[in-house]
């Protein structure tokens, strides 16, 4: 487990798919992380309990994995903290405006063949690639 391979990517993806399925059956909703988290911040959201517990599980599962496996714990910072702050603002605003992120649109929406999610994913992958291209060549 300590030497990262593309098998890790595939197996990790399968775990994400299974986790999303389980959360879908339990909640009756599409359990995209941005939606689960974003609605936790709205006072009027009636079903806060499962959202908080699901995200606590996510944080705990990741922390346990970081402790167990070197390949999972690998973390290479890429950007200054001020850039991380701006990135967070854009990710938060964009995902709630667009109704989903990599999990809600990318995994669940595409998994169900939803055209809007396919469009959303193509758009955010494209603008992310353009952003990386510009940042890596003009800022660095």
């Amino acid at each position, binding site marked *: 487990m300590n030497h990262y391979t593309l098998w*890790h*990517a*595939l197996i*990790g*993806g*399968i*775990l*994400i*798919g*299974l*986790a*999303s*399925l*389980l*959360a879908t059956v*339990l909640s*009756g909703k599409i359990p995209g*992380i941005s939606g689960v988290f*974003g609605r936790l911040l709205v006072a009027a959201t009636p079903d806060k309990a499962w959202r908080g*517990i699901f995200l606590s*599980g*996510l*944080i*705990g*599962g*990741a922390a346990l*994995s970081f402790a167990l496996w070197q*390949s*999972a714990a690998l*973390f290479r910072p*890429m*950007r200054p*903290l001020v850039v*991380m702050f*701006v*990135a*967070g*603002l*854009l*990710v*938060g605003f964009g*995902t*709630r*405006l*667009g*109704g989903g992120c990599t999990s809600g649109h990318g*995994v669940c929406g595409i*998994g*169900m063949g939803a*055209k*809007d*999610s396919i*469009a959303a994913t193509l*758009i*955010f992958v494209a*603008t*992310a*690639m*353009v952003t990386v*291209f510009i940042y890596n060549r003009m800022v660095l």
Partner: protein
Amino acid sequence: MKAGKLVLFLAAGGLFGTGLAVSGMTDPARVIGFLDVFGAWDPALLFVMAGAVGVYGLGMVILRRFDGLKLPSAGSSPIDYRLVIGSAIFGVGWGLGGFCPGPALANLGALRIEALFFVPAMAIGMLLAQRFFGADR
């Protein structure tokens, strides 16, 4: 909600966080490596998505055969300005930071300083979008 169900939600979250960490997607260098198509391209994210989308898509097809399960509708909402503009903005942030919401939260538990800057900003961004445009697309 029954305690048993909440334990299952905890398990689902634990499985999700484990998947993110095992897949390497909590490492921003690997995500930015995938997005850097004109640099040293890293295909890992594609394998993660293939595994996740394949399992979820197949699983939903199977689950829909069972009556009595409450499942989200499979239909697409219209491709409107919110979807297009919002996704475009999200992509810029994703490319800037190398974090999307799941991996950012996963790294928050590990108290990584990047996540400690990113996640509160993400919450502010979400609150702004929900305040001015509503929580539902």
